[in-house]
């Protein structure tokens, strides 16, 4: 394995398909299955996901849960085939392992659009999946948890079930064909039940029974039904332990003051911080210091007292310089790729009166409600880490590097997180905690970010702008040339993780190049803005900006053509799934035939459809223009996935994705001044509050086809549908995110 693995690691590009130097893997390497990481005493681990001893059943759910319901979803998939009831097992994210390599995330990381199912794109995906397997890359993100788990976890459950049947058959002499399973037991023909827990020790002695067929959806008892999420009870009683709640004996608490410009420190004046009550030590970390104290508040107070002179940023210090760089990026040099070209745009634009418009979307922080935290204990040549992270192996490796110990000497315990939205892809908080712990061996260190430090250190989403030129004729859109220039959050993150990034980034135009319309002459081109402030994936990644740019431009052209925004979209749409979605939406929102319900004069409605992460999602938003500002009244959402695994959680994710899209579109941005983010806390970037939140009516369509995740797709259409609704209500086009620069909201 040695050589292939080394080469792969060195040249793997998570965000891109190209592999420098070629990878020496053949069928043999790819076929090899990573070792099962589970070690079980007095019991059995059947596959890396099912662990059963005489004392109980544990399902391993390696996709980390930060609120999206990943643990519950993964457990449901296993339990469906293993015939377990909710309450008969516990879930555990397990330790990071190559056995949990993500089979689905490759889909969005090849330089093809996710809805491109041509053979080159599919081949590239297969190739990248091979690399992911070789590297054993475990990832939570990119709405990939459901696609990655759907087949393999049901198969894990079925394998365990059939293995227990084989053990029961051997023990009782009853042929396997006469056995069935129910509620955690193998059931004999006379109705006697043999609990799996009683069979576990014997099951360890036989080879797991491989299963070819999985149950048909019509036979499901858990999947597709409304179930009560396993974590709701401990979350509503305050008993669930998040990363920030971890307590260890002898633990000390650390708080950071680190250069918000991401460079070093010129001068530090401690101003008595070391002598403040409760403070144990002040230690240097990359870019600043950490105060270690007996509790978090002592640490935060002392850290605030310290005065710094920081080095300047390496990126432009002022926000207007960032915008200038974005706007200077529509050049041949910075052209990343033309992702779509139907017809002949150049000629079509020459033949008509060109309509021009452009939009922009600023940086936004992630700001999940639980501030970043990590607990690290370094002891001798071993380390242990407790934190929530989307790339647990990278977190493990980062700690190993800082502690100067081998990676497999680092035990990483993934924790429940109070939200992530991409925030926990970056390693800074883990690295800083490890830097403190390395200097205080034997003492567990909990590093907790203050909200201000969380904002200051956040690597926000990409910044970007668009230039659209279009022509309308005879009441229809004839041509659209859409150019999108953004920084590449993929490139920024991948490089911070230590890999090169050389290929075009499909995320720059994600959701725009996949627009479902047949426009006679259509071109979508991505331009890569050189890295400015470092950025990271942010819920729905490129689609939040590209989807906004595309659907506002389309709406403006439809208006110029004198057509109805819904009817014209329906007329133009050619992708069958998108058509089903938009037709469902038109019916739900009573906008089917020109609209039976005409809004009042101060009301307006807007529509947008964006296909991101393989899920066409459309929204109609209704607003009222009041004297106090825009009020968002109702949102209708339709989307299509392959299979809805848990309807109630599906709906909650959709509604949450809409509010996420709307709240940030209304009032959230990160702007830089003197190299640092100006926004420090929720009062600067509030998102949506309950009194502003509209009613959201959801319809999920099931195609029965390729299974997709729903974490991200509901976000991108929200902002353009809102902008289009505001135009309908007020006549004002809002072409910038956030919108509060141009309109007031209630």
């Amino acid at each position, binding site marked *: 394995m040695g050589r292939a693995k080394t080469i792969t690691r060195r040249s793997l590009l998570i965000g891109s398909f190209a592999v420098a130097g070629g990878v020496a893997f053949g069928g043999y390497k790819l076929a090899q299955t990573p070792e099962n990481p589970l070690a079980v005493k007095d019991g059995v681990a059947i596959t890396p996901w099912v662990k059963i001893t005489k004392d109980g059943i544990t399902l391993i759910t390696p996709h980390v849960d930060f609120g999206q319901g990943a643990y519950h979803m993964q457990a449901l998939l296993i339990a469906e085939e293993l015939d377990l009831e909710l309450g008969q097992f516990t879930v555990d994210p397990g330790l990071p392992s190559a056995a949990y390599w993500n089979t689905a995330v490759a889909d969005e990381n090849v330089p093809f659009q996710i809805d491109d199912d041509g053979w080159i794109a599919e081949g590239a995906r297969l190739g990248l999946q091979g690399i992911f397997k070789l590297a054993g890359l475990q990832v939570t993100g990119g709405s990939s948890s459901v696609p990655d788990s759907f087949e393999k976890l049901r198969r894990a459950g079925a394998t365990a079930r059939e293995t227990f049947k084989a053990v029961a058959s051997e023990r009782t002499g009853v042929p396997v064909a006469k056995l069935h399973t129910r509620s955690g037991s193998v059931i004999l023909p006379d109705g006697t039940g043999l609990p799996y827990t009683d069979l576990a020790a014997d099951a360890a002695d036989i080879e797991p029974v491989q299963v070819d067929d999985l149950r048909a959806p019509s036979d499901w008892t858990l999947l597709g039904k409304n179930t009560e999420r396993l974590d709701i009870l401990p979350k*509503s009683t305050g008993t669930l332990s998040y990363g920030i709640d971890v307590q260890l004996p002898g633990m000390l608490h650390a708080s950071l003051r680190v250069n918000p410009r991401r460079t070093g420190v010129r001068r530090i004046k401690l101003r008595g911080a070391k002598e403040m009550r409760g403070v144990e030590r002040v230690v240097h970390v990359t870019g600043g210091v950490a105060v270690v104290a007996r509790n978090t508040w002592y640490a935060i107070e002392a850290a605030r007292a310290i005065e710094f002179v920081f080095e300047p940023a390496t990126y432009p210090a002022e926000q207007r310089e960032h915008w200038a760089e974005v706007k200077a990026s529509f050049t041949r040099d910075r052209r990343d790729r033309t992702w779509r070209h139907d017809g002949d745009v150049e000629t079509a634009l020459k033949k008509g009166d060109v309509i021009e418009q452009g939009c922009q979307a600023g940086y936004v922080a992630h700001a999940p409600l639980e501030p970043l935290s990590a607990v690290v204990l370094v002891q001798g040549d071993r380390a242990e880490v407790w934190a929530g992270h989307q790339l647990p192996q990278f977190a493990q490796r980062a700690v190993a590097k800082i502690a100067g110990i081998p990676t497999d000497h680092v035990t990483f315990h993934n924790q429940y997180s109070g939200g992530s939205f991409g925030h926990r892809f970056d390693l800074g908080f883990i690295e800083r905690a490890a830097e403190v712990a390395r200097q205080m061996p034997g003492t567990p260190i909990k590093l907790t970010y*203050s909200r201000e430090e969380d904002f200051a250190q956040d690597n926000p989403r990409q910044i970007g702008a668009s230039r659209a030129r279009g022509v309308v004729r005879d009441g229809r859109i004839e041509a659209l040339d859409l150019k999108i220039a953004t920084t590449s959050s993929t490139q920024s993150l991948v490089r911070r993780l230590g890999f090169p990034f050389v290929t075009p980034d499909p995320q720059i135009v994600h959701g725009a190049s996949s627009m479902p319309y047949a426009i006679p002459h259509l071109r979508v081109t991505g331009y890569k803005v050189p890295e400015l402030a470092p950025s990271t994936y942010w819920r729905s990644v490129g689609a939040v900006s590209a989807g906004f740019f595309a659907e506002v431009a389309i709406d403006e052209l439809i208006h110029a053509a004198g057509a109805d925004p819904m009817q014209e979209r329906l007329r133009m749409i050619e992708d069958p799934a998108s058509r089903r979605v938009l037709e469902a939406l038109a019916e739900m929102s009573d906008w089917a035939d020109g609209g039976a319900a005409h809004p009042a004069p101060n009301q307006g409605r807007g529509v947008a459809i964006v296909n991101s992460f393989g899920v066409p999602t459309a929204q109609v938003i209704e607003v009222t223009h009041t004297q106090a500002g825009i009020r968002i009244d109702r949102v209708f959402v339709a989307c299509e996935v392959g299979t809805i695994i848990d309807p109630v*959680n599906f709906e909650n994710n959709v*509604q949450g994705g809409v509010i996420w899209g709307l709240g940030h579109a209304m009032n959230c941005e990160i702007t830089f001044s003197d190299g640092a983010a100006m926004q420090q806390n929720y009062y600067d970037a*509030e998102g949506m509050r309950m009194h502003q939140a509209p009613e959201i009516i959801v319809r999920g369509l099931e195609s029965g086809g390729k299974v997709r995740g729903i974490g991200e797709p509901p976000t991108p259409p929200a902002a353009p549908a809102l902008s289009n609704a505001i135009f309908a209500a007020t006549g004002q086009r809002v072409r910038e995110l956030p919108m509060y620069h141009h309109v007031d909201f209630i």
Partner: protein
Amino acid sequence: MAEVAMTVNGAPVSAEVEGRTLLVEFLREGLGLTGTHVGCDTSQCGACVVQVNGMAVKSCTMFACEAEGAAVTTIEGMAGPDGTLGPIQAAFQEHHGLQCGFCTPGMVMSAASLLADVPKPSEAQVRTYLEGNLCRCTGYQNIVRAVMAASGQAVEERSQ
């Protein structure tokens, strides 16, 4: 240092604390009641709401000493001694009123204060009363539904 004594979830507690110890810090790190969360340290987010003598208070804005002699209730005190969920907790469960759940304790405690004052609130009253509680994950809709249901009012079925 000062001696502070109060009742927390029905049990008397007393401890030596420094004058500037915040109530939330006393609860979380002093008493190990980590169900009360801190999201912002600046009373923006409401994750730290507890009840002090029946009033909803953001515990990051109050010193422990100010709660001297008071009856403090946290999320851990909302279920019965036998583990039976309180009506608001049960409604959050029934109506799926959370995702990451980090805001949930504050939501439940704020809702409890609302329902103590206004036993049958309108939906608009719920939304206005809870506007100081920030949720970053859900669509808010199921939270509102849960509070309405907890007040004994009928709530419409989910749209799916």
